[in-house]
């Protein structure tokens, strides 16, 4: 475990540069520290030390100035007591009248919507309503956010079912509130596997795809999110995890609270505003992030600031299209921009074409990227 933050905090305290919260944290830790079995010094030994030290103190007739030891303040990360909340504004962009683009048929590439399938371990599956945004799972009963009952639910209650899966297709998104109050937003092409009721000493779910979590606080029962490459351990927090199978890197971004990312070879703690990038080989932590981009999907819009391949992957998942690249396209070229997710694909692509560095052709469900 990396103890740099602990050390840095102690040095701040000693230098007198702590914030109130940092002081509170250190002093609380000190107070509650269980010091274990304590084999005390002999009374006689202690008495001996008492006399020895008293002697040395009284011998000093004149006060001497001691050189103050300067504490090297490390440039390590400052304790993140300031919480970054996900309070972002929803951006709506006015469409400009654009020059014509090589768009042939836009009608089939419609933007995604609230689509998901809920399936239970006994085989029952329910197509969730596209008019609703989310469901609440409380033990064996599931209702929509607004309290409406699900169709076909009686089948689901039969037998001893412990687990269920919520799956969004390409072009789908949905929200679920789990039995402990944790809320999860699923992006497109995502599956969340969860127990109907959390029992036992931990709350565990599995994710493939991308999801945003607001974990209900319960310090005595840790919440764990497993993806193929890692397990995230959380207390009460808000974070985003992106673990698509076609991505080599699983990205976990923390907005508020505290998580621990466990991969088979290493574990790392995250501070708010940091992202852990897990690959098969390593975990890399970064705070050079555009937080808004990372959770823009949850707020209902795209915010890009990346290369074309990353953008097209996101477009493919939301609009449920296939993407083909022609020769000569510079895959590393980066674009930045914002657009509501409910816009047509054609509008989005037109936006990117303004730059003049890329062109698109839409044929049914296929998008061709051209230089």
């Amino acid at each position, binding site marked *: 475990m990396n103890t740099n933050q602990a050390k840095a905090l*102690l040095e701040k305290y000693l230098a007198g540069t702590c914030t109130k*919260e940092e002081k509170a944290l250190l002093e609380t*830790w*000190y107070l509650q520290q269980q010091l274990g079995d304590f084999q005390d*010094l002999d009374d006689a030994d202690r008495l001996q030390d008492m006399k020895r030290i*008293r002697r040395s103190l009284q011998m*000093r007739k004149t006060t001497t100035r001691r050189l103050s030891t300067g504490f090297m303040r490390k440039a390590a990360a400052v304790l993140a007591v300031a919480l970054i909340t996900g309070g972002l504004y929803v951006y709506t962009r006015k469409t400009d009248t654009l020059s014509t683009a090589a768009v042939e048929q836009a009608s089939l590439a419609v933007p995604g919507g609230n689509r998901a399938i809920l399936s239970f371990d006994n085989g029952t599956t329910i197509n969730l309503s596209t008019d609703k945004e989310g469901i609440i799972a409380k033990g064996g009963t599931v209702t929509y956010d607004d309290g409406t009952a699900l169709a076909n639910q009686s089948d689901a209650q039969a037998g001893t079912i412990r687990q269920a899966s919520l799956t969004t297709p390409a072009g789908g998104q949905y929200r679920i509130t789990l039995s402990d109050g944790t809320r999860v937003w699923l992006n497109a092409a995502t599956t969340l596997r969860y127990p109907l009721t959390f029992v036992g000493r931990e709350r565990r779910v599995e994710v493939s795809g991308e999801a945003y979590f607001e974990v209900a606080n319960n310090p005595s029962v840790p919440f764990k999110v497993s993806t193929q490459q890692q397990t995230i351990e959380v*207390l009460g927090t808000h974070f985003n995890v992106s673990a698509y199978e076609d991505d080599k890197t699983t990205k976990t971004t923390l907005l508020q609270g505290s998580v621990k990312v466990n991969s088979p070879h290493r574990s790392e703690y995250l501070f708010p505003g940091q992202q852990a990038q897990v690959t098969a080989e390593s975990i890399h932590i970064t705070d050079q992030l555009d937080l808004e981009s990372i959770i823009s999907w949850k707020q209902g819009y795209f915010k890009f600031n990346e290369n074309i391949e990353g953008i097209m992957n996101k477009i493919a998942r939301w609009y449920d299209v296939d993407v083909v690249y022609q020769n000569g396209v510079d895959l590393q070229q980066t674009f930045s921009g914002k657009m509501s997710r409910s816009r047509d694909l054609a509008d989005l692509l037109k936006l990117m074409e303004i730059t003049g560095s890329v062109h698109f052709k839409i044929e049914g469900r296929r998008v061709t990227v051209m230089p």
Partner: protein
Amino acid sequence: MSSYNDLSDNKLVSLLKEGNRDAFTAIYDRYFWLLHRHAYKWVRNRDEVGDIVHELFLRLWEKRDTLSPDGGLPGYLYASVRNKIFNQIAHNRVKSEYLTSLQDFIHRGECITDHPVREKLLVELIEREIASMPRRMREIFDLSRKQLLSHREISRELNISEQTVRKHIQHALRILRVNLGLHFLFFFFFLPPTSL
């Protein structure tokens, strides 16, 4: 003049501020055992603890002019020990499990933000440690913890028996103890030795 060991903490502090070496020695005699024991629980190394306590009292003497222990002398001394222990931990002079534990604690993010509550908990910690002192040392400690005015001085002042004074104070203490929101100073200093 009665022995310095009979004087209250407050009285000793004001004498210390005047540069009174006997008062300094009295404070040392009174608090050495408690502080040394507390530091040893953390540091578990006789030499290191010796350094800590030595340095602490040295500083106490050197900074006697500007001394103003708001929360009372015990709290002040305990906070000094705590700072020295932090120093040891930060510079790897004690076992590294403390750094790991602190790192863990940082990530749990739970702490007591209310300062008076932390002070109160520190008081309770000191009380527990006093209670677990060896009997002989505890008796010496208790005997030397007088109230701001000793019973004798009060009885002389008010022309009533010491017994009456004691009863009044104990009654007042019972009330004071219920109101834990009171300033640390009063809470600590008015505790009668017999209640420990």
